[in-house]
């Protein structure tokens, strides 16, 4: 059991996007498999955990839900830091939220300050696909924007109909894991914490160093 726990991977997933595009609904759909019609505007940030098995590995995804209003972007500093992947959501029935994708991406890169600006894993999510009245943001345009902004991946979802919500988050988590492959953050076992061989050696080394010093003094 302990060995299995050891392999748990923690990922921080941040979901951003304009106010009212359905970030909270998406996350709620994914973590509790329900859809609530009346969601409140999110204040500050909230997060929920979801444990999933991807490619034989148990991943605990810490999904952060953020406030959509632009004025609170400066608060993002405390949420964006340390993110492993980021989902930018827009409302397909609201063109202005699509136009704001640029702002969101830049804000994330600015405040989150990830090490690799060019290759940081983003996923663009076009939500509310169920509201099909012909005036939705077209897939072509969205794909075009993604191609222009460093070949980002694009997915269309609907939190209401539960269309490809699971898929979107799985993709996000996979991307995050790829990024983390180099330096996987593994939970330190309690046993391993107790094994302080390195420290002991250091102590011995210090002692060895001290003794001759003392002799010199004497």
């Amino acid at each position: 059991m302990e060995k299995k726990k050891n392999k748990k991977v923690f990922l921080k997933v941040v979901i951003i996007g304009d106010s009212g595009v359905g970030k909270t609904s998406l996350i709620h759909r994914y973590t509790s498999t329900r859809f609530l019609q009346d969601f409140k505007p999110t204040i500050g940030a909230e997060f929920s955990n979801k444990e999933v098995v991807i490619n034989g590995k148990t991943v605990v995804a810490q999904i952060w839900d953020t406030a959509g209003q632009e004025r609170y972007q400066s608060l993002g500093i405390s949420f964006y830091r340390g993110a492993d992947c980021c989902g930018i959501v827009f409302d397909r029935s609201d063109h202005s939220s699509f136009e704001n994708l640029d702002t969101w991406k830049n804000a994330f890169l600015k405040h989150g300050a990830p090490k690799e600006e060019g290759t940081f894993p983003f996923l663009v999510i076009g939500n509310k696909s169920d509201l099909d009245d012909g005036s939705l943001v077209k897939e072509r345009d969205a794909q075009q924007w993604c191609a222009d902004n460093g070949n980002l991946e694009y997915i269309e979802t609907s939190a209401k109909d539960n269309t490809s919500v699971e898929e979107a988050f799985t993709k996000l988590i996979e991307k995050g894991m790829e990024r983390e492959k180099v330096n996987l953050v593994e939970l330190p076992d309690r046993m391993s914490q107790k094994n302080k061989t390195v420290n002991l050696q250091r102590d011995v080394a210090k002692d060895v160093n001290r003794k001759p010093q003392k002799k010199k003094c004497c």
Partner: protein
Amino acid sequence: MDSSENSEEHYNDLDSEDKSDSSDFLSSGGSSKLREEETKKPVIDPVISRYLEKETTNPDNPAEKECKTKHQENLNAIFNFVHPAEKKKAEYHDPQNAVIEQRRDEQEVPMYEHDPMEDFKEALDNDEQRGSVSLDSDGSDDDHNDDLPRNSTPMTKEIKSRMELEGSFWQKHNKEGVQLQDGDTRDMYSVKNQVIRKAAVPRNTKEAMILRVDRKERAKKKEIAGMTLEQKKKALIGCDIRFSPKEWAQIIANDRKGKLYEISRKRISESLIKGIPDELRGYIWVFLCQAKVNREKYGEDFYDKLVSKGPSEKVQKEIDKDVIRTKGAVITKAQLESLTNILSAYARLDNELGYAQGMNYIVYYLLDTIEDEELSFWCLYDIMFNKNWRLILKDQTPKFFAVVKNCRRILYQEEPKLYKRMVKCKVPFAGIFSQYYISLFAYKLPKELVIRVLDVFLYEGEKKITQILIKLFKYNKKLLLSMDEDEVLEFTNNRLVSSYLDQESITSLVS
């Protein structure tokens, strides 16, 4: 209304109240004034008038009843006293008074603006109880200096003799040509002391006696309304100093400019912490926010104009989007409309801020409690401008970061172990605190807690929110220290408040 007149009136009231109506807890306005006000304003809300008719003592609360009968006079003496500094504060907030003061400076100032008789009044009242001789009936005041105003209050012989001394003193020195300049508004005592120093009074003369009397008077002046600090403390021990519903009703009925600053701070905050009657909550909020005063300042139709003009299209869109989502099914159609109106009126008033998410929750509770659209708007105005909340909600949230920094500092000072643990767990302080500051606890928390927090916030402002947050961490200290890292994160984010939702713990939380 002359402000000096005001203060004199106040002192008069203070004295008269001590003797007469002990059930009247209202401070400077005094019972007579209150009655006048009531007659002036025949339209009093039926809810308020019902409370006004009720008995003062609350039968449900035996402790309160006992306390009131026991310490009634003491408490009256303490709390009806308004410190001159507070009085000044009230004047300071009143631009009209400032204008009057300027004018007063230009006018001719009476020679003794400070009535010398006033200083004897306390002594008079004490002596009066022993049995009295009326000065007026005596007719002997004709002998006194004309500068001394006549007093209609009955006096003892002792005081009369003092008066004579006093009179002769002034007579003598006025003859010697020591006079106050016009416009000299110095305290009588300082002037008198100067005079005495100049005159180099020998011992065991009449003048020396005056000096002694003078010292006694001054010692008395240091005490508050005839009580020393120790007496005051004694009177307060074990005493419930909350306002009864009737007292609240009286305060509300007498809501006017500067009124808030005249009432004992301690009593208000104590009453708010221990809980106020639900039915009066809306009125009390209006009073605490000085909503009616603000409305008068801007004019009655100002709000309607703001609503009809409305904010820019973009802001209006944001508002409309959020209003529907604010409370979901709970909100009625009329409330929805009022909520939209208030938010758009505010966005119009404050172009710089416009609309910020979080305001919708605050306004919802204001509207739900006050049940009046316009007054709710003026309460919001007070929160945003006087309590400076607009700086917390403004773009880039400048004040919010300062506030969070302050919170962290306090937490570090008071609970260093807990603070280090939190930092180790990488708890984003700004993230945790944001919902509480931005929405004033109104986001996602049950109504019982929100209204109690708003009660204390509306009176004491930002510091109360900080206090409550620090308290939450202190209460949960053991739990937090025993948790794993990711549990700490989850707990601080979602469950910090959840275990403190019954009435008692709310009271301890907001105290």
